[in-house]
Structure formats: structure tokens, C-alpha cells
């Protein structure tokens, strides 16, 4: 029995080999004339005005949120911001921390949002450049100004007037942060600049950089003397060439998403590019881990709340946004997550929550620090794709 099956399979293999070759030849010849059916891929752009679901907030008091991990105070705590929101607004929130990576989340929702289908979420939280991209793809619903008065009144000045949504029609920053450097003082002498991460010999092979292109390239551009807010294609070429050289020299151990601090604490990595809030949290556990403001400066970014097309509880989402822009609530949240609080007045409110954090420059940076931060210039679609591919080639061996 088994031998019959066996020889049958062998014959198929031989035949299939011939068929594959023949098939490829036919495909090659007929290619110009044929048009493959079913898989035309039109653009994913949508018009938010026509991708609206009826808002059922008034009859169905629920709200579905997708956020990054570790980005909210404990939800079970009675006096926590989350419980208080549910109790005071009579809204049941289903909160999931399923955003790990902007690009990954984009890949997850692309087919639905690109085809004007619901993703069954009312509020998602994404970083500036991804927020900008989704807004320009028409995947995001405009917010009702009248329902988010606190946002317009209390957002801190440095986060206002961003090029991609200057009047806050579509986004509300959830938390903000700085990109800088962290190092393990038990392992290595002080690290002062990004330039040292790229070139210092005693760091060789023990440095990690962040895997999002804009995070890292902003600094490489700075090291090269270019302005990440406004650079030319030549400057980009120089910067990516420089990085290519550094990578092939073995200076960089890896490009990492979220898990770089474990390696730093374990001593596998001695210095890394890092996000401010992560470093504060790590410093509590391991005082050898130090945060550094690089000589090149700091990059300021924020993760933004967005209401996707076809969300069915927009009014509830707006209630959530408005609630988290109350200074007392924002202070409580900031005391827990340790990122930069985007809400004016939260610093005063923090005195009652945790006085030791009032003067923490990584939660409430002074205006001079914020004035000197830089951002990555908005890229058009074609540039973005080209740069991302070059970036993938350099970081992807």
C-alpha cells in the first residue's frame, strides 16, 4: 500500500517539475497580454466623510480602545483614572494593549480601513508619523471640537500646530516623550552624544539603536550636521551611508523595538538609544542606568489618540479624550506612566498626587528643553517608501 502511494508521489513530483517550468514559460510569454483577475489593488485612500458609522454612544455606553502596553495606571484600582472614568461617565471601557509597533499595527488594520470596513475599535493610539499617514489616507474621523474643550484649552504649547494636523481636528496626544540615550554606568564610562554611540571603540558591538527609521535617522542626520526637521536628499544619502558603514563595522548590536532595556540592565548592551519614560521606569529598578540628553539634542514625539473610520462610539471616545485632558487626571496618569504629560496644569495638580515628580524634567521638562527638541520632517508618500526601503536594507543586513 505504502509503496503505491510512494511511487504515485514520485511521478507527481516529476510531472510537477515539468509543469512548473512549462507554466513559467507560458506565464512569461502571455504576461503582456493577460491581466490577472481578482487581485487588482486600488489605493487604500478613503474619504472619512463617507466612512461614517452611526454613533450609538447614547444607547450603548461602551468604548473600545487599543493602546500600547504599560501606558495607563492600574485599571483595577478604585481611585485610578480608569475606574473613575467608568464610574463618573457610566461608560464601560474595553481596553486592550495590542499596539506594539506602529508599522505592525498598520499592517493589521490596513485591509479593513483601506476598504472602508470597521476595525471594531473606537480609539487607537499611534505615533506622530503614523497618525499623519493615517489621517492623510482618510482613515481617521474628525473630532467634534465642542466635545473636547479640555483638549483645546489644555494641550501644552510645544505640541500644538504640528504640520500634519495643526488645529487638532483629528488627533489628541495621549503621552509624549523624548528620544535620547541611556547607558549602564556600572559597565561603561559616561556617554554624552549620539556620535559616541556610532563611533566610540569601547562601545563596539554593545550598542542598540531603535528600529523605527525616524527615531534613529533623526540622530544620524544630526550627527552629520543636517537638520532632521528639514533636510535634502543628499543629506539623507550621506546619513544612510554613514549608518551603513557603522553597521558593517559591527558597532551596532541590533535595532530593537521595545525590549532594549532588558539587554541594558543585563549588561549585554552598555549604551542605547532610548525613550524617556522607559528609562525612568528602569532607573527605579537599577540606579546604574542613566538617562542622557545627547549633545545633538532630543527628539520630541507623541503618541496620539485617533478615532478610526466606522467607529461606533465616537461620542464616548471624545468623552474619554476630554476626561484625560483634565489636569488632575493627567497628573495621576503621568505619575504612573512617567512619560511627558501633554496637559497644561498637570504640574500644579501633581503636587497633590506625588510631590517628588513635580520637578522631574522627564515628565515636566522646562520650556527651554522643549524649545530645542527636534522632530522628523514630514515625508511624502514616495520619499517615505524610498527611505524606509533604504533603512530596511541597512538595518536588515
Amino acid at each position, binding site marked *: 500500500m505504502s509503496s503505491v502511494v510512494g511511487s504515485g508521489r*514520485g511521478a507527481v513530483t516529476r510531472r510537477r517539475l515539468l509543469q512548473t517550468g512549462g507554466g513559467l514559460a507560458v506565464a512569461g510569454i502571455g504576461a503582456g497580454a493577460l491581466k490577472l483577475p481578482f487581485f487588482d489593488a486600488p489605493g487604500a485612500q478613503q474619504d472619512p466623510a463617507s466612512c461614517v458609522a452611526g454613533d450609538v454612544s447614547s444607547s450603548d455606553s461602551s468604548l473600545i480602545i487599543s493602546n500600547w502596553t504599560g501606558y495607563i495606571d492600574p485599571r483595577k484600582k478604585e481611585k485610578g483614572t480608569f475606574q473613575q472614568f467608568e464610574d463618573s461617565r457610566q461608560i464601560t471601557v474595553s481596553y486592550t494593549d495590542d499596539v506594539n509597533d506602529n*508599522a505592525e499595527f498598520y*499592517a493589521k488594520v490596513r485591509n479593513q480601513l483601506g476598504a472602508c470596513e470597521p476595525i471594531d475599535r473606537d480609539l487607537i493610539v499611534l505615533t506622530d508619523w503614523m497618525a499623519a499617514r493615517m489621517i492623510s489616507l482618510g482613515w481617521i474621523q474628525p473630532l467634534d471640537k465642542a466635545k473636547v474643550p479640555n483638549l483645546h484649552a489644555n494641550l501644552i504649547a510645544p505640541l500644538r500646530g504640528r504640520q500634519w494636523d495643526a488645529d487638532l481636528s483629528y488627533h489628541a496626544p495621549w503621552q509624549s516623550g523624548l528620544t535620547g540615550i541611556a547607558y549602564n554606568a556600572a559597565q561603561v564610562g559616561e556617554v554624552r552624544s549620539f556620535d559616541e554611540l556610532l563611533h566610540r571603540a569601547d562601545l563596539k558591538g554593545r550598542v542598540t539603536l531603535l528600529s523605527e527609521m525616524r527615531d534613529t535617522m533623526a540622530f544620524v542626520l544630526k550627527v552629520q550636521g543636517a537638520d532632521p526637521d528639514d533636510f535634502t536628499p543628499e543629506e539623507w544619502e550621506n546619513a544612510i551611508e554613514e549608518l551603513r558603514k557603522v553597521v558593517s563595522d559591527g558597532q551596532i548590536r541590533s535595532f530593537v523595538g521595545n525590549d532594549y532595556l532588558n539587554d541594558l540592565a543585563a549588561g*549585554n548592551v552598555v549604551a542605547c538609544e532610548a525613550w524617556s519614560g522607559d528609562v525612568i521606569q528602569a532607573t527605579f529598578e537599577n540606579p546604574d542606568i542613566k538617562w542622557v540628553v545627547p549633545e545633538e539634542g532630543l527628539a520630541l514625539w507623541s503618541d496620539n489618540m485617533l478615532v478610526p473610520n466606522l467607529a461606533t462610539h465616537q461620542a464616548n471616545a471624545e468623552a474619554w479624550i476630554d476626561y484625560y485632558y483634565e489636569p488632575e487626571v493627567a497628573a495621576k496618569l503621568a505619575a504612573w506612566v512617567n512619560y511627558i504629560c501633554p496637559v497644561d496644569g498637570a504640574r500644579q495638580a501633581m503636587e497633590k498626587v506625588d510631590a517628588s515628580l513635580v520637578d522631574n524634567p522627564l515628565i515636566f521638562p522646562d520650556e527651554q528643553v522643549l524649545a530645542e527638541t527636534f522632530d522628523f520632517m514630514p515625508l511624502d508618500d514616495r520619499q517615505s517608501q524610498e527611505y524606509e526601503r533604504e533603512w530596511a536594507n541597512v*538595518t536588515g543586513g
Partner: protein
Amino acid sequence: MAETTRRKGRVGYLLILPGGLWLLLFFAFPFYSLVATSLYDPSGSDFRGYEMSYAFGNYVDVIRDYWQPMLRSLLYGATATFFCLVLGYVLAYAIAFKSGRWKVLLLVLVIAPFFTSFLIRTLSWKLLLADDGFVVDTLQFVHILGADDRLLATPFAVVAGLTYNFLPFMVLPLFASLDKIDYRLIEASGDLYANPVRAFFKVTWPLSLPGVVSGTLLTFIPAVGDFINAEILGNTNTRMIGNVIQSLFTDANDYPAAGALSVILMLMILAMVIVYVRRAGTEELL
């Protein structure tokens, strides 16, 4: 008479139907979509849409840009498969012939790692091979490793991770074919004055070939396409083809290039498997 033959024929087709539908739905259809994607105009994007321009140039481009990770994947996959075979054969042999009443327990132990997630198992290798960990410290102490050498984030760590993660896929088919061997044949070879080495190569090894072939295939194919091990245990110069495809797809949104690479990977593996199965002369054994 003719009637029954026809009915038998129809029954045959009916029996193929579920499998055929399954293949159509989960293989032919996605594969067609993948090939179509790989031929889109490379200038497409989510903003402008993707135009089908039969851009066979995509294939040339990705081979030119990514031949290194491609070769590296084959090399790592083959090395890991080799180590799996050596380690797995010894283990499967011991379980099949020498374990006595512990046989079931040992088999459970082989499968036990599957109770934990693939990711956790790979992450635990980071602890094992950490720069200040026991293994590296010991090897440095006996001067096998220099004071500044490391194991984590090297090709060694990636191959070790691949070997570890795919070892059960090698052990189980090997065990299945070794266990079926009639031990009297080995005893008979001894009666005919074959020493144990000769008996192994003349009797045990040939009879275990079906297990060797399916074990190596089950290890090599997923190992070549794997990207988790290189991602977690490797460095910037150990990226495998899976990592490239992943980053082209999710980060660069370059679906045509990612598609072309995937098709090439599939064809490459298919070709190698065909040659391998032929050369091993095991068509009858499978």
C-alpha cells in the same frame, strides 16, 4: 461491471474533494495572490494603489539586493539541520532501542518544550548566552572565548536557537522509523559477523532513512524561513531572509519586493527538496 467502475471513480473524486478544496482555499488561492503581488509595479503604494504591470524586474532587483541574506538563510538552515540530525539521531536511537520502560516518558520530554511558547523558549536563550552569563563566563575562564568575545548576537547564537527550536521535528520522525525496525535484523547481522559499526551502517541507517529524510525536511524548510531566532538572538549582520521579507512588508510597505522574495524562497526550497529527495533515492521510502 462498468457501472461499479464508474461509481468507484466518482467515489474517488468525492474523497479528494475536501482535500482539494482545502488546497485550493489555503494554498492555490493565497499563492496566486502572492505571485500577483510580486508582479505589481514597484512604484505602487497604499496612496496610489498597486498597478499590475508584470514587473518581472522585481525579481531581479530583490536577488541583487538580498542575495546575501538569502545565502545566509540557506547556510544557517543547513547547519542547524545538520546539528539536529546528529543530536536527534542519538536521542531517537536511545529512546527507540535503549530506553525500556522510560520510552513514553522520554517521548513526552521531547515534546514538553512545546507546552511553552516558541517566543519564550527563544528568549530564554538570551539568558543562557548572556554576556555576563554562566556559559560565557565559563568559556572565557577556560580561554575558549577571549575576554571581549561573546556568544549572544553572533551567528552561533542564531544557529543554536534554530537547532534547539526545531530539534523535536527531527527526533519524532526519526524515532518513528527507528522504532519500527525489527531488532532481530540487527541481531542477525551480528550473527553474520558484522561488528556493531558495520551493522549500524548496513542495517540500522538504511532502514531509518525515511525518518532521516522527513526529519531533515521538517527541520530545514521552517528553519530557512524562520525570522524569530535571527531577530532575537542575532545582530545586524545575521539577518535571514525571513527578517528581510518581514521588514519589507511591514516597515517599508514594499509589497511587490516582499512578494517576489517570498516566491523565490518557496521555489528555491521546492527545487532543493526535489533534488534532495531524488538524490536520497527515497521516493519508495516516503
